[in-house]
C-alpha cells in the first residue's frame, strides 16, 4: 500500500467516525424532541394550567396503558384486542386495495383503449369521500370486519390507481423505443420498463394512502364497531374518561408512525437504484 493510499484509508476511517457521531447526534435530537414534548405536557398538567379531567398527564396515560393491557373496562376489550381489531381491518383493506388498484392503474396508464373503458367508472367513484360510503356499506355488510375493510379499501384504492397511472405515464419514450429495438413485445416492455419506472410514484401513493387508511379506519370505527381503537376512543368519550381517549389517540399515533416507517423501509429497499442524497 502506497503512502498516499494509507492516508486516504486513514481519512476514510475519520469520515466514518464522523458520520457515526453525526447520526448519533441526530438520533439524540429525535429523542430529545419527544422528551421535551412530554415534559411540557406533564408540567402543564402538574401546574394545573389545564383541567386534569380534560387532559391527563403522560405519566397517568402510561399507567392507564399498563392497566388497559388486561383490563376490558370500559369498552369490553383489552388494548391488545383493540389494536389487533384495528390492524386487521386496515391491513386487509389496504392489502386488497393495493392488489387490485396498482395493477389497474398501471394497465390504464399503458393501454389507452382500456383507459377509455375504465376511466368513466373510476371518475365517478373518485369524488365520493370514503366516509360517505359508510351508510351503504353498513346496510349491505353490517359492521364487521368486511364492512370496515371495504371502507378502507375504497380510500386506498383511489390513490393507488391515480398514482400508478401517473407513474407509468412517466416511462421514458427512449426506453420504450430501446425495448422495441431488442424485439420486445408490448407486455414485455410493460413489465421490464413500465412497471419499474412507475415504482417511485406507486410508493408515493402507498405512503399517502396508508395515512388516510388509518385515519378513515378510526372514523369508521367511531361510527360502527364493537372493537378497535376508534371504538375505544368513542366509548371513552361516552363515559367521560379522558385517560382512555388520550391513550387511544397515542396508540393510534404510534401505530400510524410505525406503519409509515415500515413502508419507508420497504421503499428504500425496492428503490435502491434511486439517487440518494
Amino acid at each position, binding site marked *: 500500500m502506497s503512502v498516499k493510499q494509507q492516508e486516504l484509508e486513514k481519512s476514510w476511517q475519520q469520515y466514518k467516525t464522523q458520520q457515526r457521531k453525526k447520526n448519533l447526534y441526530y438520533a439524540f435530537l429525535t429523542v430529545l424532541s419527544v422528551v421535551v414534548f412530554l415534559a411540557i405536557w406533564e408540567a402543564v398538567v402538574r401546574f394545573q394550567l389545564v383541567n386534569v379531567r380534560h387532559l391527563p398527564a403522560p405519566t397517568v396515560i402510561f399507567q392507564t396503558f399498563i392497566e388497559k393491557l388486561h383490563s376490558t373496562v370500559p369498552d369490553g376489550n383489552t388494548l391488545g384486542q383493540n389494536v389487533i381489531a384495528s390492524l386487521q381491518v386496515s391491513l386487509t383493506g389496504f392489502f386488497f386495495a393495493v392488489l387490485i388498484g396498482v395493477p389497474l392503474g398501471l394497465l390504464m396508464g399503458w393501454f389507452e383503449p382500456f383507459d377509455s373503458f375504465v376511466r368513466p367508472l373510476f371518475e365517478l367513484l373518485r369524488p365520493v369521500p370514503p366516509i360517505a360510503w359508510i351508510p351503504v356499506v353498513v346496510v349491505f355488510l353490517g359492521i364487521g370486519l368486511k364492512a370496515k375493510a371495504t371502507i378502507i379499501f375504497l380510500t386506498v384504492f383511489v390513490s393507488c390507481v391515480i398514482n400508478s397511472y401517473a407513474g407509468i405515464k412517466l416511462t*421514458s419514450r*427512449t*426506453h420504450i*423505443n*430501446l425495448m*422495441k*429495438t*431488442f*424485439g*420486445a413485445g408490448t407486455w*414485455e416492455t410493460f413489465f*421490464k*420498463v413500465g412497471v*419499474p*419506472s412507475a*415504482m417511485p410514484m406507486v410508493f408515493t401513493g402507498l405512503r399517502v394512502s396508508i395515512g388516510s387508511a388509518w385515519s378513515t379506519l378510526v372514523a369508521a370505527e367511531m361510527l360502527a364497531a364493537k372493537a378497535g381503537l376508534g371504538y375505544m376512543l368513542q366509548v371513552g368519550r361516552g363515559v367521560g374518561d379522558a385517560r382512555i381517549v388520550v391513550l387511544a389517540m397515542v396508540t393510534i399515533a404510534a401505530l400510524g408512525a410505525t406503519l409509515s416507517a415500515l413502508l419507508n423501509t420497504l421503499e428504500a429497499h425496492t*428503490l435502491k*437504484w*434511486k*439517487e440518494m442524497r
Partner: protein
Amino acid sequence: MDALKKCLEVEHISKTFYNNKGYFTAIDDVSFDVHEGEFLVLLGPGHCGKTVLLNILAGLEEKSGGRVLYKGQEINGVNEEMSMVFQLLSLMPFKTVMENVELPLKFRGMDKKQRREVAQHYIDLVGLTGFENAYPHQLSGGMKQRVGIARAYSVHPEILIMDEPFGQLDAQTRYLMQQEILRIWQEEKRTVIFVTNNIEEACYLGDRIILLSSCPATVKEIFDMSALAKPRDIVSREFLEIRSKISDQTDLSM
C-alpha cells in the same frame, strides 16, 4: 476490399407528421446507400429531422413514403441486425451497468452464463471494468454513453446506429470519446451510421459524410473522405481543406 457492397439502401424516404392543427414535413425525399463496413456520418443542423430519419431506419417510426432495403430485401419494422445508441440518456436507471448491457442479450435468448461473458467483454472494451454493479446515476455523462455503446455492440449487430451520442458531453470528453469510438470501430469492425451536427466530429470520424439540409431534411451533398487515413490529424492541411469545403456548403443556422 469490397467497399461498395451495399448494406442498406435508403430510397426516397419522406416523413410528414399530422395533428389536428395541421401537418409538418420533417423529411423530404432522402436517398442514400450505406456500404458494408463503412463509418457513415449524417451531418445536419439541429432539428432537421436526423432522429426521425434514424428512427425510420431502425423501424421505430412509420415512414410516409419511400422504402428501406437491407441487403436487397425491403424491411418494415424493427430489424434485429441493427442496434442503436440513442441521443438522450437511454440507460434504465433501475438496472446496473451489467444488467443494462445484458438486457438485449436476454431478448436474444442467450443463457445467463454466456450473457455475462459477452457483456463483460464489451464493458471491458469501452473501458468500464470495475463499474459493472454501479447504477447509472453514479456515472458521469461520458461513462453513461460508454455503457450505451457497449450495449449496442453486445448483440453483434450488422449495423450500428448512433444518434448524436456525444451531443451532451463537454468538449474535452467529447474529443476523448471520438478517439474511443474509432478505437472500438477498428477493433470490432461493423457498419456504423453516426449522426452529428458537429462538422469537426463528422470530418474526424467519417469515411463518407452525407450532408443534410435544414428542415425538411434533404440530402444536400455527399463527401467521400476515405482517402484520409484514420486517426486523422485535425490540424493537417488536407483535413482543414475538406472541413472548410463542407462548412461552405452548410447552412448558417447550424
